[in-house]
C-alpha cells in the first residue's frame, strides 16, 4: 500500500538515511527498530511529508507520490503521531483533537457539539477519561500523549505512523492503546511503529525492519526473531551485559532531605543519598518524582522541609543556587528545559560551566574548543561539527549533550530525571556505565526512572513514591519488580494517575 523506494535524506552534509526500501501492508503492524539516530524518525517523517527526500521516492497505492507537506500526506490518508508532542496548549482537548478537521456546520462555522462528541468518541476508543473541554496545558504528559494519539486516530487514515507513542504512557494506557491498534488492524489500517521497549515489539509487530546507522539491515517477520537476536541486529554486535556491576557506597551522607512538602504534589518526603551511592526515586507517572527532584534543583522550590547537603543546611531558590552548591541535573523535559535549539552543540555543552572557561568576563575560546572536543569524543556525540545546531541532532545525541553539560561543572550530586527515555539500547548502556563511573568516583546519583529493570540494577536504594508520599524505602539488592510495583500502586486496583 505504502512503499519507500531508495529513500535518502541528508542533513547538513551528513546522510542520516541511506537509500532505504521498505513496504507497508494494510492490516499489518510494521515495527521500525534501531538505535537512536539510526534513521527511524527520519524515515517516518519523509513518509509523512514532513521532510522532502534527497533521493528516491514514496509510492502510495502503486503511484509515485511526492508529498509537499504533512497536509498533503494527511489528505492522502497518512497520519503521524510524533515523538515530540506538539499540542496547542491554550486550546481545549476537543479543539486539539479535531484540529485541521473541525466539523463544520453552515457558513463554515465550527459545530461545537459535534466537535465535542467526536473528541469524546475518539478518547473512548482509547479508554481514556479526559474531559474534552479541558485546556491542553492542564494535562499531564501522559494525557497529552493520549490526546495526540486520538488526534491521529480521528483522521480515518489508512496508514498511521507512530513514533514512540508509549514513551510517556503508564501500563494501563499502553494496554488501551494496544487494544485500539488491534481494532485498527482489523479495519485494514497499516501501522508503522517505533519503540525502544522490547516487550511491545513482540506483542504488536507482524514484521520488523531494523535500521542501523541510517541503513536498512533487513525486514523480517516478527515470529522469526527473539529479543536477543533483534538487539544484535540493532547494535551490530552481541549485546554484552548492559548493566555494569554495582560498587559499594560509602556511608558518608551527601544529601539529606527531611519532610519536603509542596501540596498537592508531594508531602513529607525524606531520604538520604551517600557519596558513591545511587538512589532511585521510583513510582508511577504523577507520583511526584519529578516534582521532588525539581525542588532539590531549585526549579520549583518546596513549600517546607529541610535539605542538608555536605552536612550543612542548604536552601535552593533557583538552579543557580543548586549549581553553586554542587548539584547538577539532567531534565526529563529535553525540549522545554534542556536544549537551546538554535545554538550549536558546543555552546549547549558549555552553557552551565561557562564561568570556568572564562578569564574574567571573557570567554577563552581556545579552552572552550578543547573542552568541547573532548566531551564530544567522551560521550560519543554524533555531530557533523561542534557548532552544528543541536536541534538537528537525534534524541540520543541531544541527551548525551545535556549529560555532558551537566557533568562539565563537576557536580557532587547528579540528578538524572528519566535519563534513558526515548533512547536506544546502545546509548542506554553508555549511560548506565556513566552512572556507575560517577558512583565509583564518590558522587551521589539521584535517579528518577520509570523503567524498573533500570532502577533495580543501577540503584543501591529505591525510594518508592506513591501519590506524593514515600511509600517505602527498599534495598535494591533485596527487591524485585513486584515489590516495587506493589508499593508504587495506589491501593484501589484500577485507579488512574491523578490528573
Amino acid at each position: 500500500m505504502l512503499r519507500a523506494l531508495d529513500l535518502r535524506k541528508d542533513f547538513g552534509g551528513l546522510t542520516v538515511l541511506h537509500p532505504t526500501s521498505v513496504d507497508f501492508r494494510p492490516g499489518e503492524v510494521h515495527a521500525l527498530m534501531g538505535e537512536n539516530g539510526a534513521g527511524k524518525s527520519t524515515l517516518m517523517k519523509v513518509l509523512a511529508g514532513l521532510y522532502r527526500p534527497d533521493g528516491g521516492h514514496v509510492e502510495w497505492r502503486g503511484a509515485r507520490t511526492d508529498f509537499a507537506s504533512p497536509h498533503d500526506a494527511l489528505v492522502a490518508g497518512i497520519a503521524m503521531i510524533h515523538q515530540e508532542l506538539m499540542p496547542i496548549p491554550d486550546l481545549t482537548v476537543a479543539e486539539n483533537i479535531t484540529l485541521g478537521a473541525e466539523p463544520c456546520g453552515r457558513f463554515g462555522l465550527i459545530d461545537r457539539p459535534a466537535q465535542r462528541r467526536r473528541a469524546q468518541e475518539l478518547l473512548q476508543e482509547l479508554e481514556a477519561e479526559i474531559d474534552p473541554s479541558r485546556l491542553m496545558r492542564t494535562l499531564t504528559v501522559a494525557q497529552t500523549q493520549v490526546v495526540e494519539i486520538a488526534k491521529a486516530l480521528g483522521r480515518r487514515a489508512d496508514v498511521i505512523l507512530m513514533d514512540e507513542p508509549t514513551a510517556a504512557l503508564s501500563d494501563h494506557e499502553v494496554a488501551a492503546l494496544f487494544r485500539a491498534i488491534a481494532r485498527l488492524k482489523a479495519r485494514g489500517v497499516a501501522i508503522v511503529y517505533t519503540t525502544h521497549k522490547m516487550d511491545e515489539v513482540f506483542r504488536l509487530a507482524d514484521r520488523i525492519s531494523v535500521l542501523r546507522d541510517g541503513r536498512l539491515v533487513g525486514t523480517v517477520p516478527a515470529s522469526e526473531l527473539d529479543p536477543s537476536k533483534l538487539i544484535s541486529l540493532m547494535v551490530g554486535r552481541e549485546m554484552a551485559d548492559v548493566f555494569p556491576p554495582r560498587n559499594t557506597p560509602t556511608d558518608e551522607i551527601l544529601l539529606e532531605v527531611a519532610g519536603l512538602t509542596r501540596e498537592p504534589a508531594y508531602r513529607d518526603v525524606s531520604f538520604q543519598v551517600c557519596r558513591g551511592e545511587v538512589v532511585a526515586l521510583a513510582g508511577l507517572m504523577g507520583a511526584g518524582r519529578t516534582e521532588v527532584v525539581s525542588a532539590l534543583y531549585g526549579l520549583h522550590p518546596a513549600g517546607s522541609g529541610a535539605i542538608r547537603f555536605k552536612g550543612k543546611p542548604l536552601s535552593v531558590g533557583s538552579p543557580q543556587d543548586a549549581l553553586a552548591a554542587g548539584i547538577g541535573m539532567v531534565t526529563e523535559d529535553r525540549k522545554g528545559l534542556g536544549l537551546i535549539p538554535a545554538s550549536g552543540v558546543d555552546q549547549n555543552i558549555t552553557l552551565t560551566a561557562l564561568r570556568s572557561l572564562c578569564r574574567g568576563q571573557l570567554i577563552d575560546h581556545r579552552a572552550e574548543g578543547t573542552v568541547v572536543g573532548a566531551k564530544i569524543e567522551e560521550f560519543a556525540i554524533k555531530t557533523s561539527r561542534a557548532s552544528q545546531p543541536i536541534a538537528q541532532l537525534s534524541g540520543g545525541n541531544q541527551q548525551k549533550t545535556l549529560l555532558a553539560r551537566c557533568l562539565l561543572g563537576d557536580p557532587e550530586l547528579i540528578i538524572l530525571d528519566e535519563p534513558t527515555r526515548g533512547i536506544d539500547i546502545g546509548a542506554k548502556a553508555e549511560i548506565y556505565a556513566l552512572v556507575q563511573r560517577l558512583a565509583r568516583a564518590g558522587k551521589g546519583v539521584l535517579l528518577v526512572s520509570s523503567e524498573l529493570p533500570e532502577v533495580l540494577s543501577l540503584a543501591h536504594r529505591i525510594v518508592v513514591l506513591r501519590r506524593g508520599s514515600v511509600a517505602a524505602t527498599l534495598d535494591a539488592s533485596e527487591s524485585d519488580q513486584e515489590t516495587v510495583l506493589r508499593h508504587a500502586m495506589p491501593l484501589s486496583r484500577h485507579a488512574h494517575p491523578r490528573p
Partner: protein
Amino acid sequence: MPTLDRNLLHRFGLLFVILLVGLGLTFTTDTFLSVANLTNVARQVSINGILAVGVTFVLLTAGVDLSLGSVVALSGVACATFAHPGDHPVVVPIAVGLLTGAACGLVNGILVTRGGVAPFIVTLGMMTVARGLALIVSGGRPVANMSDELTALAGDFYGLPIPVLCFTGVALLAWFFLRHFRLGRHIYAVGGNEHAARASGVPVERVKLFAYGLCGLLTGLAGVVLAARITTGQPNAGQAYELDAIAAVVIGGTSLAGGVGTVTGTLLGVLLIGVINNGLDLQGVSSYYQAVIKGVIIVGAVWLDRRQARS
C-alpha cells in the same frame, strides 16, 4: 557561533545586494560614488545604526523595544536643557542624555522581568510616556541655544564625522561583547530557550535587564548625537525611528523569536536601508513613494532570507 554557515551565506548575500544597489546607483546617478555623498550616507545611517545595534541585544533575548524613537526625543531634550552655553561643562549634557536613555531602558527591563508584562506592551507604554515627558520638559517647543562644544559632536574629528565614529565604535564593542563575553553568550541562551537557560544556571532576569538597559543607553547616545546635529532638543524628533532600527536588525538576519543573530548582520541591514534611502533621494523619488518602496524592500529582503533558510 550558532549556525555559522547560514550566517556567512546570509552576510555575503546581503553584501551582494548592497553592492548591487550601489553599482546601480553609480551608473544611474553622477553623484552617488563620491566622497561627499558616501560620507553623507555614513552620517545619515549613524543614528539608525546606533539604535539598531542597541535593539539587536533586546531582539536577541526574544524581546522587542518600541520606545526607541520617543526615548531619542526625550534624551535629546534632556541633553539640550543642560547644554546652554556657559551653564555646565560639556560632559554634563552628554551624561544627562545617556542616563535618561539608560533609565528608560532599565524601567522597560524591570517591568519585563519583575513585572512579567510582555515587552511589546511595556515598550509601547514607554513610547507614549517618553514622548509625553519630552513634551512636558520642553514645554512643547524645541530647546534651542545649545553650546558649540555640544553641537561640535555632529562635526568632524580629524576629517571623520563624529557620529560615524560613534556608530563604528558602538558596533565594534557590541560585536566583541556578544562574541567574547560570558554575558553575550547568555543573551543568546536566554533568547534561544529561556527556561533551559534558567535551568542551566543563567541569571535570566539580569541578562534581560542588561539588554534593555544597554539598548536604552545607546538610545540616549543616539538622542545626544541627533540633538547635536539639529542643534536643538526636538520633542517631536525620532518619530518611527524604532521601526527603521528593527527593520535593519531583521534584514540582518536576527530572529524576532530570539537566540539567532549577529551585529555584523545588523550593520549590513543598516547599510542597506541607508543606501536605499540615499538612492531614492538622489533619484528624486518623492517621499511618499519612498515610504512604499522601503516597506516593500524590507518585507522582500526578509522573505528572501527565510526562503533561503528553509531550503
